[in-house]
Structures are given as structure tokens and as C-alpha cells.
């Protein structure tokens, strides 16, 4: 169990997801990684049924599973105000959610999952996942885990170098948006900048990163028609939005993916 970083892969317009996955796996295998099974991360969302009257969105309960922790079920409650409460429970939690259909209804159409192959390369575990929502392909998420380290600040540079090496994309120098310093309220009621990259890494952090990415993919349904791939404010530098490619794409090691960074 080590530090895990999620990286969304910028999809070129005229390539299919399967092709990209194939291309990346070939690169990994030639690098010397070994294929080690499959992985699956899925997320189902439940919305509280009695919609509150004052217009705020109801509370959402996200239930996630990660095949890397097969005995556990993760759950995150998202009240409309942005506060998130996370929970790690035994797999029997899913049965509990089935009983809660009176209070929470499942929005079946937003069931989203990331599935793909898992590669092991020394101390790294790299997962190439294709994100699908109701059989529609949404994008590609790369998950990279460095098993020897538990604090991101110590190994971010190495992870970044690894990502840039085999993905051949530009990864920003800053920490991913999930780990960026945030203001939190201390116990004494003061606001304080808290740097998440100095904390010990926990399995719930992986799941929260996935939730963040999945939420973006869900919001994309509304933004699907945008041409220039404008980036929503508030998303960090890690978001790689689908980019409109010129009619004659230049592929290959030199890379032709233009990025728009905030």
C-alpha cells in the first residue's frame, strides 16, 4: 500500500479508447513491466429521496469498490455544501444500502467504473483503466502506485518522472489537485492551510481521487459539445480535458497533444 496518483489521459479525437490502451500497454510491456491481472473501480451514487424544500441538492452517497482492497467497500457522503465524509466498511455494506431504498434511491444511469489491466514494474503498480458509464466510453484514467513510500511529498518527483516517461505527456510540476493545500478549520476555529501532500497516504485517498475524476466525467455529459475543451474553474492542473485535434494529427514519440492548462 503506497502513494497512489491518478492521472487522466488526454484523449485524442480520432483514436478509440481501446487503441490508446493497447498502445500504452505495449509501451509498458516493452519497458519491462509484467502484466498482473485486472482491476476494477466502480462507483454507484444514491441520492436522498425526499428532496429538501429550499432548493439545495439532496445528499448524495457514493459507494465505491476497489479491487485492490477486495474485502472493503468505500462510501463517501457528499452534502451539497461540499463537505465530504468518508467511510471504509466491510463488503456487507452493500447489502445495507439495499435496505435503505426508502431514504436513498440509486441513480442507475450514473453508475460509472474504471476497468482495465494491471501492471507491476519494480516498486510501481500501474493500472490503465478505461472509464465507462452505462456502456459509454468516457475516457482513460491511469493510476500509478509507488509501494515503498507513504507520503506524497517524498516521492512526487519520481512518480512524475515515471509518468512522463511512459505516457509521453507533460505532467505539471505542482502536486495533483487532490493534494493541493486546502484551508481547513482547526479545532480552535481558525482557518489554516493544510498541505495534504505531507500526510500519510490512506486507501481512502485513492478512492476520493477516483470519485473526483468520476464526478468530472459525469459533468462532462453536459459539456460534451464544447469545442475548445475549456476547463471549468476550480479544477486543478491535473485535469486533462479532451482536446480538439487538427485534421492531420501528428502522432508518435514526439507527441502532438496540445494541452490547455489553467
Amino acid at each position: 500500500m503506497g502513494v497512489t496518483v491518478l492521472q487522466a489521459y488526454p484523449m485524442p479525437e480520432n483514436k478509440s479508447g481501446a487503441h490508446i490502451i493497447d498502445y500504452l500497454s505495449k509501451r509498458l510491456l516493452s519497458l519491462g513491466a509484467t502484466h498482473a491481472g485486472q482491476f476494477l473501480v466502480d462507483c454507484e451514487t444514491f441520492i436522498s429521496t425526499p428532496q429538501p424544500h429550499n432548493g439545495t441538492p439532496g445528499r448524495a452517497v457514493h459507494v465505491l469498490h476497489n479491487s485492490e482492497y477486495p474485502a472493503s467497500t468505500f462510501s463517501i457522503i457528499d452534502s451539497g455544501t461540499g463537505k465530504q465524509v468518508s467511510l471504509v466498511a466491510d463488503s456487507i455494506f452493500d447489502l445495507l444500502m439495499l435496505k435503505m431504498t426508502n431514504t436513498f434511491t440509486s441513480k442507475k444511469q450514473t453508475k460509472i467504473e474504471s476497468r482495465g489491466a494491471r501492471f507491476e514494474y519494480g516498486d510501481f503498480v500501474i493500472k490503465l483503466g478505461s472509464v465507462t458509464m452505462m456502456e459509454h466510453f468516457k475516457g482513460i484514467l491511469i493510476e500509478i502506485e509507488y509501494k515503498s513510500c507513504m507520503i506524497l511529498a517524498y516521492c512526487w518527483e519520481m512518480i512524475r518522472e515515471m509518468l512522463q516517461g511512459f505516457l509521453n505527456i507533460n505532467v505539471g510540476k505542482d502536486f495533483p489537485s487532490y493534494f493541493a493545500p486546502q484551508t481547513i478549520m482547526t479545532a480552535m476555529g481558525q482557518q489554516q492551510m493544510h498541505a495534504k501532500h505531507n500526510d500519510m497516504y490512506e486507501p481512502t485517498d485513492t478512492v476520493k481521487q477516483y470519485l473526483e475524476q468520476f464526478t468530472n466525467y459525469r459533468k462532462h455529459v453536459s459539456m460534451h459539445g464544447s469545442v475548445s475543451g475549456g476547463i471549468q474553474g476550480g479544477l486543478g492542473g491535473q485535469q486533462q480535458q479532451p482536446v480538439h485535434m487538427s485534421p492531420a494529427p501528428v502522432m508518435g514519440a514526439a507527441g502532438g497533444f496540445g494541452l490547455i492548462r489553467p
Partner: protein
Amino acid sequence: MSNSVNISVETTCENQIREIGYDGTEQYQPAPTLSESLAKCAARIDFSKTSLDDLKKEEKTAAAAEEENKDGTQFQESLWPWDAVRNKLKDALTEICVLSDVISIAKDKRYLVLDPLLEEGDDTKPIVQVYSRKKAISQAAQVLLSGAERLRNAHSEQRSRNVSDFHIELLRLRQNWRLKKVSNAIIGDLSYRTAGSKFGMSGTFEVTKAEEASDDDSASTSTTSSSTATNNGMQMKASSALRVIVPAELQGVAYIKVITQKDQEDLCTAQVNLMGHGPNITAQVGVWQKTLEFAQNVLFCKELFAQLAREAIQLQAPIPHVVIGNQIRATLLPNIQLIISLCHSTTFDSNQPAPINDHDHVLEHSLHQLLREVHYKNSHHPFPHPASAPLGPSKKRMLAGPMAADRETLLDMTKTQTILEQIIAQAQHIFMRKRTQYVLDTLARDVKDPQIVSHWNAMNSPTMSCVKINIVTHGYDAIGRTSLVIHVKERSLKCICRDGRVMRLSYEPQELRDLILCQINSHQISCLVSLARCMAWTVLSNSNHLGIGKVEPLGNASSCLLASPNGDRMIAVQIRCDPQIDVKVYIARSPRQDFFPSPLVPEKLWENLGGNFKEVKFDKIEGKSFLNKMEFLMASLTSNTA
């Protein structure tokens, strides 16, 4: 002029309708007047509650019935409800008057006297009474006397003989073993089934009275086994009133023998035996205790051996285990075998064979504990939290969900080791530890110059021990010390040096020896470097792996080059270790003595370039150790002249 309006106020008509006329008018029953309602209430009083008035009640009911009939014809409403009440009150008044008359007459005592009733006297004769009492008392006396007689007999019997009662013996037996009564036989159980064992062999024994029992009249008196009790002090052959019969396959004495063999030589042996070789604890109880304990021991050894044999057949080892008869052979390391055998001798004699002298308590205790652990796991299951969770997974597995355990951790939880694997691992480790100790001790004995001090950890696990080795030179401990830690595992060693290098060695003892020699090598040079600094000599260079000279089987030479404080002397030291530590020391002086200006090199200043190195007869130098000699050498070569 306002017209007055007539307002009619009517009550709600609650009265019953008696009659409806042909023109629609309704005739109501008039509402009951106050007196009528009072009469109704009074009529409800039940005067017949008292028991004395039962007869009168009948009369009254009869009278009331007559009156009803009468009143039914006359239909006098006002008198009818009160009539019954009036009659009842009238009767009550009559009786009260009579009672007061009687009491006043009785008080006068002239015409009426009240006397108490006399009891009737007994008309039986007193003699009959006496006779019946005497009989009753004599019967009671008889009962008491017979009871006392019985007690006296029992007491005198108990004192007269020295063998205890059957029932006392049975009580002691029940305190130590599980017994139950089946029809008219007493069956006991000496197996470990209630402790969690699942062995198929039954351990039931039967308890009977001893043969020399004499029959008595009363069934409850104890039987004695007379007199042939020879009560020697040492021999516990006291005959007892009961006998235990154990099954035939559990008779005798059994023990499990564990031997580690190297090429047909016995290296170490171990015995597994439940019977302690301590003081004989069966002194107080009868001879049956020993029999039962031996039988239980046989059962335990059989179960242990059966379990080991089953595992030996099921396990896939690189060199397969061999099970022949009552022996299991397993290979620990190449040429080293572990032999576990079950020895069962059915002729039980009191002079048992003397135990084997090098008794390995550790393996014996381990096998016993391992089987006991299996029994414990069979009978104790961890309770699930919450109570609705399935019963079965261990506490770690139940916590794995909420703690987000990853796949490797979950896989590790599923791996279990059988008893045979565990005992093989422990035996391998014991062997590796003995071997490592032997290597270190012989090296410490042979190499005197730096001293090798090894500190073994007092606490270790059955499959891993640690030793810390310090290499110091006597007298120069403050100058430098080389230390390393060796983790002794089952088939390998792991060495961690002070500078962080980790080396993994196999089970060959030569590898450890070579490693220590190399460490001695580098110790000498590093201590020499520190010593030179103390002596104000300059260290020009040193190297741990020179790579010069002929190829050595063991590492490379290490060297050091020192210059004196005023630069006129140089010392070069080279240490090899092939297989002994070999030290060569050379000295050079500058300016060189043998410089003569030649046409090629005319200037005299070239004599300062330094002369040839000449070897020193190092073993002839005074000094107790290498560092001591070097110190003297450096001291002697240090000169004051500039």
C-alpha cells in the same frame, strides 16, 4: 310597536313513546318524578347479602313474586317499588327486636342463661395409650440403633484395613478423569475430545471393582481387597479397590523420538513424552492413575504421529518426505535429515529405560505445543463482531474490511502452515543456529588479533535468532570497532553491516567464515587509518579492494598508505585474507639514500622523490597485535628533525 314573538322553549324529548295515536300524536311516558327515581334506586338495594337471611330471602322472593302478580293486576305504580324495600326493612326490624329481647333476658339471668359448650371427654383407657407410645418409641430406637451399628461397623472396618474404600477411590478417580455410568458399568474417557481433538481413536476405559472383593450383605458397603497389600516405600504397588481396564491399543508406554541425523551420525535427539521425568506425582493416588496417564500419553503420541504422517504424505516438498512404518523422514538441509519416530513398548515394567541424555526440550515442547494449538483452534472460535457476522473468520480477517487491507495482506492471511512444516522450520533453524555458533566460536578461538565478540539475543522466535558481532582490537576499542548484525533464519543468514550493506548468505558455513574474515580485513585497515590520525600521520590513500596480485578465492587485498608527519617516511600496508590474514608492511624513506645524479637526472632535488619500499619483517616487530605493532612502527619512524 314591536310585535312580540312567541318563542317556545322545549326540552329534547327523551321520554319513551308509549303510544302513537292514529292522528300522529305521540303519547309519552311521563318522566319519572324524583320520588319515582328514588324508589328505583332503593329497589336496587340487595338486602339478601347476609347469609342469615337466606331463608328469609326465599320467603321474600316468593312474597315479591306474589306481590308482583298482585301488583300486575292492580298496577299501582307508586307503592310497588317501595313495597319490597318496606318488607325487607320490616323483617330486619323484627329480627333486631328479637335479638335485643333475648340479650336483655339473658343479661337478667333469671329465665335464660348462656353457658359455654363442654368438650366431650376421652373415654379411652390410659393403658392403651401407654402401650402405643411404648411401641412407637421402641420402633424409633430400633431405627437409630441399626444406623449406629452400621456406622460403627464401617468405622471399625476403615480403621482395620489400609486400603481405601471403593467409593473414596472412585471419588478421587472422578476428580481427575471424566466418568459416566452406562447401564451398570462405569465408563470413563481419557481422550482429548473435550479439548478440541478430532482424533478417531476412542479413549474409553472401564472401571470395575478389584477381584479380591468380598461380597457383603448390603449393597452399599464397600468392598475391601484384603491384605495382600505389600506396602513398600519405593514401589507404588498398593492395591486399590478399583481397577481400570484400558483398551488394548493404548496399553503400554509410548513416546515420540525426534532425531536430527547427518549422514548416519546422530547430531541431536529429542524425545517427546508427556510424562515428566520429575518427581513421581502418583504417590497419593492409586496405581490406576499411572495406568490412565500412560494410556493418555499413548493416545496423544498416536494422534501426533498420525497427524504428522498425514501431513508428510500430503505436503509437496522438493525432497519428498518418507513415511515408513512408524518413522517419518524429512530432509532439513542437504545431507541432514529429521527423523520422527513413534516408540511404543507394550510390556510395561517398572524399570523403564533410562532417557536419552541429550534431551532436546525445545523440539519436544514444540511438538506438544503445536498439537495443543491445533486442538485449541478447533474448540475456540473467535466471536464475530457484530453478532450477526458469520462465525469462522479470525479477528484479523473480520477487521480486514474496515481497515482496507490490500490483496497481499489478505493472501497472507490465508496461508497456514501444518505441524510438520512448522517443526521442520524449527529444526532447520536450530541447526542453522548451532552451525553459526560453531563458526563464530571457532573463528573467535582461532583469530586472536582483533577479538570477535558475539552477543546473541536472549529473546528470539522459534524460526529466527539474531546475533550482534563486534570486532575490536584489545586496547584500541576507542579507535574503532566493526560491528554487524546477523539474522539467523531457517535456511539462510542475513548480515547487515554498520554502513547499511545487507548481504544474504546461504546455509553453507564457509560463507559466514569468509564474510567474517573480510570484515576483519576491513576492520584492520579502518582502525589503522584512525590510529594514524591519532599519531599525526597522514593517510595518503587506502582502499578496500585493491584488485592487484593474483586472483584470490576470497575477496581482494585491502591496503593503506601512510606518510609521516614531516613527510620523510612512508608506510604501505597490505592485508590479504587467503585463508589466513596475511599482513605485509613496507617502508620507504625520502630523501632516498641511493640517489646519484646521472646525465638524465642531474639535479639533486630529485632525491626527494622517495625511495623504494622495503619490506618489514612484521612478525618480528614488538607488539601484541597488529595495531600495537603499527603504533610502535609509526612511533619509531616519527622523527623530530624537520
